[in-house]
């Protein structure tokens, strides 16, 4: 246990500071071809003809692929659900002869060099028939709007409606009713490593795949489904490192199946690496417009809440079919208690780029709406915003509001509010717009009062993990899992959990490099804040088996019952007889010995019982879906002459059950704030309103916070409520870190200048306009 909560050195850090070899972008395979996609300049069009003859004649071109050659089975590319999941929409083909967004691939070329592939796609002649376009989801829902898919009347891909209680009665009981419209925009996860893949098809049709993915087994399943082949024909190699994901690598792209088909055509490995511009149009957080109406008593008790959310899913439903539900349930319906609630979600097709997964998965959009409106209510009714939230919150021990049969075993919302407010100095907050001078300061906060540590309770979402741990004769352990470390630290935390459970020093546990789908148990993706909790549980279970087996062999060696033994820091200790201790290395060497072991005391026979590799294997789903909660306080300074907002300091309090790796947890909070602040103030993936093409080619066009814009002072408070179902009491951390910054900043801006902005991002232009200066 002594390792848990400390900050041992990350096992991958040395390699990463000296060159970082093990990224998928570095993989080279002998004989590899390079492919390039030709993308449509039109956002909505029918392909009438494609002439590839000139491209095929170019020296070095080995294959060209066009839509007529791809399998006709439609799929959802989302990794964490079965390919035929009923809650998702199977509306994609690898390539289609109908274009629905600017940038959709319409042909591909594999050549002996990237340069030749780039030249070749320029030689392909495509004749398009342009179709009418629609870019605004509310316009797309109107009768007469261009229809994108035959199956979706008025372009609505899915339309979940949920609720409970009696809404009319609830609003009738309210002393006050508040209504507001809160809208958000499209932002990119900005993983730094581009999406890249190499697919190699052998002559028997077996595919070996390297890819920058957040989910090893999801890629296996989706690729097999799209290619209409058995899953065992696809082997996906685990990349030890992934250069960031944040949800942006949570679905199969166009590149993997296209590379697969080009490899099958040529018999050679095919590599595709996206440019930054291609990455920008591959995945993004969905814009969602939230119409939120809330009834409250004079004292601030919720009586009724109604929300309608319009999500722009772009050309295909993909993640949009699930994001809308997470947004509604964990962002609006279940965050606080309200007896009469109704929520309607609309996932709407447009001719915009396809939305994707992004850390928070619908919650940032909802949290911005809900936490902004709560502050508006408190301001108008002169209520204390902390007390307001406390009054309407859940409490530990209550039934889980969403997952039947579960309870909120650990839930420390009050402690987050209290400790955060104290550390921040919330009591010093002044009335709105009370500052003097042109630069005005303000304080604000926001909460994520219910979140997840995985996906138990979601019917269509995979949620199990596995691990293999094997001890070596030198006393070290090899840990193999399918869990992807996308920068989120699982190489570290899983090694730490294994070391702590077995009783080894941290540096004795090694994460196996280059596992693949044929060698390790299935794991759900690194997403939904689940990896340390769910994969951690699996690793702990495998480690427990290892420890038991280790003690059994040691017991035979020492002629003592295993219950008299313990493992501490690589040593087997005997209760009451410390001098009789053995090292783990001695025990494993014994277990791995031939029938006669030659030691210092001469040859000694070994028994059958002792023999065999000391190994632990697990595959299991966690029993619960415990709820982390978080509260974030920020102080901002608004320049009323320029409209520029600077965040001065941040205090973030989070109930994570039990801290595993302090430094890593702080990194999640600090990195989450960067993404959340970018979302709140500056990031915006913009598109030409006529052509529908993405205006961001690179990071000169797309502004994310640099070290200069970031606040100097970000403090993390970790509340340890000890979750009984988690590894060492842990639950999860990642996503609330990114959910709360935008509303906290919006609330602080209101406190600074007395102006409420309900549309993200809160740019200087919007601030000046709201102040009447533009």
């Amino acid at each position: 246990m002594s390792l848990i909560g400390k900050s041992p050195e990350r096992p991958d850090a040395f390699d990463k500071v000296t060159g970082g070899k093990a990224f998928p972008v570095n993989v080279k395979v002998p004989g590899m071809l390079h492919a390039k996609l030709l993308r449509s300049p039109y956002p909505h069009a029918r392909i009438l003809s494609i002439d590839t003859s000139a491209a095929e004649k170019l020296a070095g071109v080995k294959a060209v692929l066009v839509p007529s050659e791809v399998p006709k089975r439609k799929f959802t590319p989302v990794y964490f659900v079965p390919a035929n999941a009923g809650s998702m929409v199977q509306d994609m083909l690898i390539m289609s002869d109908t274009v629905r967004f600017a940038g959709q691939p319409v042909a591909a070329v594999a050549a002996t060099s990237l340069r030749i592939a780039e030249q070749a796609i320029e030689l392909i002649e495509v004749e398009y028939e342009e179709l009418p376009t629609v870019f605004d989801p509310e316009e797309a829902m109107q009768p007469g709007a261009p229809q994108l898919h035959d199956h979706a009347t008025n372009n609505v891909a899915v339309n979940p409606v949920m609720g409970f209680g009696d809404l009319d009665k609830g609003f009738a009981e309210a002393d006050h009713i508040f209504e507001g419209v809160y809208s958000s925009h499209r932002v990119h996860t900005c993983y730094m490593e581009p999406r890249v893949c190499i697919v190699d098809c052998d002559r028997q049709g077996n595919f070996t795949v390297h890819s920058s993915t957040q989910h090893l087994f999801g890629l296996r399943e989706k690729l097999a489904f799209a290619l209409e082949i058995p899953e065992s024909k696809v082997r996906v190699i685990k990349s030890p490192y992934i250069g960031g994901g944040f949800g942006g690598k949570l679905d199969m792209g166009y590149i993997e199946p296209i590379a697969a088909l080009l490899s099958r055509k040529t018999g050679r490995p095919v590599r595709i690496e996206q440019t930054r511009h291609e990455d920008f149009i591959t995945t993004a957080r969905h814009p969602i417009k939230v119409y939120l109406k809330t009834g409250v008593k004079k004292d601030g008790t919720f009586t009724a809440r109604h929300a309608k959310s319009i999500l722009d899913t772009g050309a295909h439903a993909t993640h949009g079919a699930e994001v809308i539900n997470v947004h509604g349930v964990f962002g609006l319906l279940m965050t606080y208690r309200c007896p009469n609630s109704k929520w309607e979600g609309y996932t709407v097709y447009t001719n915009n780029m396809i939305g994707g997964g992004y850390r928070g998965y619908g919650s940032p959009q909802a949290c911005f709406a809900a936490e902004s409106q709560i502050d508006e209510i408190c301001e108008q009714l002169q209520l204390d915003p902390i007390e307001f939230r406390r009054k309407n919150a859940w409490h530990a021990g209550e039934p889980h509001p969403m997952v039947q049969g579960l309870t909120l075993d650990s839930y420390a919302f009050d402690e987050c509010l209290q400790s955060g407010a104290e550390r921040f100095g919330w009591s010093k907050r002044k009335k709105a717009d009370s500052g003097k001078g042109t630069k005005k300061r303000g304080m604000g906060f926001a909460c994520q009062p219910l979140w997840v540590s995985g996906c138990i309770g979601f019917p269509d979402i995979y949620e199990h993990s596995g691990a293999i741990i094997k001890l070596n004769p030198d006393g070290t352990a090899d840990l193999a899992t399918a869990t992807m470390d996308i920068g989120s630290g699982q190489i570290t935390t899983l090694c730490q959990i294994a070391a702590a459970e077995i009783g080894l020093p941290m540096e004795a546990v090694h994460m196996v490099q280059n596992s693949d789908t044929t060698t390790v148990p299935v794991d759900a993706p690194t997403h939904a804040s689940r990896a340390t909790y769910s994969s951690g549980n699996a690793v702990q279970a495998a480690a427990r088996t290892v420890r038991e087996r280790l003690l059994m062999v040691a017991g035979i060696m020492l002629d003592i019952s295993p219950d008299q033994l313990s493992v501490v820091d690589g040593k087997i200790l005997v209760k009451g007889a410390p001098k009789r201790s053995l090292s783990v290395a001695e025990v494993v060497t014994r277990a791995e010995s031939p029938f006669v072991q030659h030691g210092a005391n001469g040859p000694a026979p070994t028994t059958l019982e002792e023999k065999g590799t000391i190994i632990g294997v697990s595959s299991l789903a966690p029993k619960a879906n415990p709820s982390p909660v978080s509260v974030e306080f920020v102080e901002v300074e608004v320049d009323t002459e320029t409209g520029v907002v600077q965040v001065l300091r941040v205090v973030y309090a989070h109930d994570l059950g039990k801290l595993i790796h302090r430094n890593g947890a702080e990194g999640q909070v600090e990195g989450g704030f960067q993404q959340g602040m970018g979302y709140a103030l500056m990031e915006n993936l913009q598109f030409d309103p006529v052509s529908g093409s993405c205006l961001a080619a690179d990071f000169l066009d797309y502004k994310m916070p640099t070290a200069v814009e970031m606040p100097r002072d970000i403090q993390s408070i970790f509340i340890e409520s000890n979750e009984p179902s988690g590894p060492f009491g842990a639950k999860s951390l990642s996503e609330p870190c990114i959910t709360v910054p935008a509303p906290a900043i919006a609330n602080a801006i209101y406190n600074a200048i007395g102006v409420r902005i309900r549309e993200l991002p809160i740019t200087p232009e919007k601030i000046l306009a709201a102040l009447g200066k533009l």
Partner: protein
Amino acid sequence: MKTIELLINGATHEVSIEADETLLQVLRNRLDLTGTKKGCDSGGCGCCSVQVDGKVVYSCMMYAAGAAGKAITTIEGLGSGGTALDPLQQAFIEAGAVQCGYCTCGMIMNASELLATTKNPSEDQIRHAIAGNLCRCTGYTKIVDAIKLAATRTAG
């Protein structure tokens, strides 16, 4: 194709290149020096930062031919080999400044120029020095901590 000589990390490499190949492409694709990463290929992220004659450049924005005859330092040239690290590399490990690690090498190459030219830089100087290097994991806090730590050690 033409042949040029590049002086990289103290060793001379003779490479045949196309005239328009960038230094980044030559380092990664022809010399397998994969510590230098491509993040955007347009001078906007800093992942490909290397030093040329002691000055940080985005290697995606420099033609390889233009680097001939100059002293190029990449992440592989920092430290003294084996497990002996440059103080910045050591500090990045200790401060926990590494998460996914994709920006790390460029970040270190940039900070290395700062520490070579500025003893005990202020936090503002550090933050402005790395403003051309994007990181999406860390929020920069621990990267700034690491550079401060290395600065303290090298100044003393």
